[in-house]
């Protein structure tokens, strides 16, 4: 099993989610994160003093999938999350050794 972790721009979430469900994905876990990267933050002036906003709001999506689904899922993400502008984000793929569904104690592929 693989874990696909995508960092995307927040306003793309709904589109990506729809693409993923179309790609046959039934579940995912999402969280709000702050990103630092080539897309630089911005400088604000508060009461005359400058301050840097270094971290930009991003969304992290984690999707556990069977190995055969990885390409399809990555494509779905890239297909929808890409705007072509700096800061679109990354996709990371890593390995999961086992997966359990808490409710049924099903394992691995059946747990998804």
């Amino acid at each position, binding site marked *: 099993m693989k874990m696909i972790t995508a960092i995307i721009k927040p306003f793309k979430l709904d589109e990506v989610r729809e693409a993923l469900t179309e790609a046959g994905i039934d579940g995912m876990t999402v969280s709000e994160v702050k990103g630092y990267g080539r897309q630089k933050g911005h400088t604000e002036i508060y009461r005359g003093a400058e*301050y840097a906003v270094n971290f930009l709001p991003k969304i992290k999506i984690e999707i556990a999938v069977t190995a055969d689904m990885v390409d399809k899922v990555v494509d779905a993400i890239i297909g929808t999350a890409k705007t072509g502008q700096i800061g679109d984000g990354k996709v990371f793929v890593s390995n999961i050794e086992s997966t359990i569904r808490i409710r049924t104690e099903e394992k691995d592929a059946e747990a998804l």
Partner: protein
Amino acid sequence: MLDKITKKYAYGGAALLASAAVVLVASTETSFAADTATETKYVLNTLLFLIGGFLVMWMAAGFAMLEAGMVRSKNVSMQCTKNIALYAVAGLMFWLVGYNVMYDGVAANGGWFGSFTPKSIPEPAKDAGDYAAASDWFFQMVFCATTASIVSGTVAERVKLWPFLIFVAVLTGILYPITGAWKWGAGWLQDMKFQDFAGSTLVHSVGGWAALTGAIIIGARHGKYGPNGEVRAIPGSNMTLVTLGTFILWLGWFGFNGGSQLAMGSLADASSVSKIFMNTNLAAAAGVMSAMILNQLLYGKVDLTFALNGALAGLVAITAEPLTPSPLAAIAIGSVGGLMVVFFVPLIDNLKIDDVVGAIPVHLLAGIWGTMAVPLTNSDASFVTQAIGVGAVAAFTIVTSSLVWLILKYTVGLRPTQEEEIMGLDQAEIGLEAYPEFQK
């Protein structure tokens, strides 16, 4: 009060003198009518104090909200605690000694201060004078509390609760009443004809000086200035609270300035109160717009906190004399207040004076400006006397409030530990987060 009461007859002018004359002439035959009129005046004057008083009381909530919005969320419960407590302390101290220090027998002490005794109130049926004694106490008390509210904002996020409240007790029981006595207690500044209608100097500058000495003696918040002295912005946690607080203060200011006419029983007084309302609103509006426009020109955008501070600076500026200016003059006076915010907030910050809410430009500097501007529209005032008043109040308040801050610093201590400051005073001293559920 004596002075202000005197003043009110002055304002009443011709109309009042005329009707007073009628009273005397007609008194043998229409004594009942005259009594009724007197009683009605008494009621209306009292009513002005009560309405003005509750509006100014409401300003305590305005300061609380404004300050709660300007601090970081880890210090919000503390800031709320300080604000409810300082209003309570002021209310008790101004009864215990404050009122009488300010108003009772000041002349007997050379015009410097009154008596250190609690304020007593006559039985309602025996209440003589032009207004109810308790209504006057209430109105003066809320002014005193305002002075303390000014301090709490500047020194927010880095002073311990109880030492702060001890400072407030001294400020509201003794310091504010003493300089107040010089003018409103018919003391020596009043004899010199110093003019300060509703307290640009007596309230706002006093609060501002006490805040400034506090900010310097306590020092800046941890992290406010970088290792190389660079200024670091620390954004407030909640801009709607700052906005709400400012609207509350604006509303309360109609009581602050309008009520300072001290009488509403005659045509001239009612008309004066009305003109004060109008000028107060125009000055505040002008303060908002001048701050916003200068802000846009200098920085290319509008900082909400400057717009809000601009309103307050306009209000403080007009407070020394809200009655004599024409509408256009009121707009001019308020505008300068607004400009001062945009200029002086960064300047004070660069001097490494950490004023969390901008009370020093808003209350102290705009207060000085307002006081010095009185002679522009009021021929009873002179620049020299105004400067003497500003200077004397400054000298006294700087020295005495520094002393109190320093004594507290070297006895009970003023600051929480750095660790406590970093974790936030809410956790360190209040044990209660303001927004425990929201991830920060």
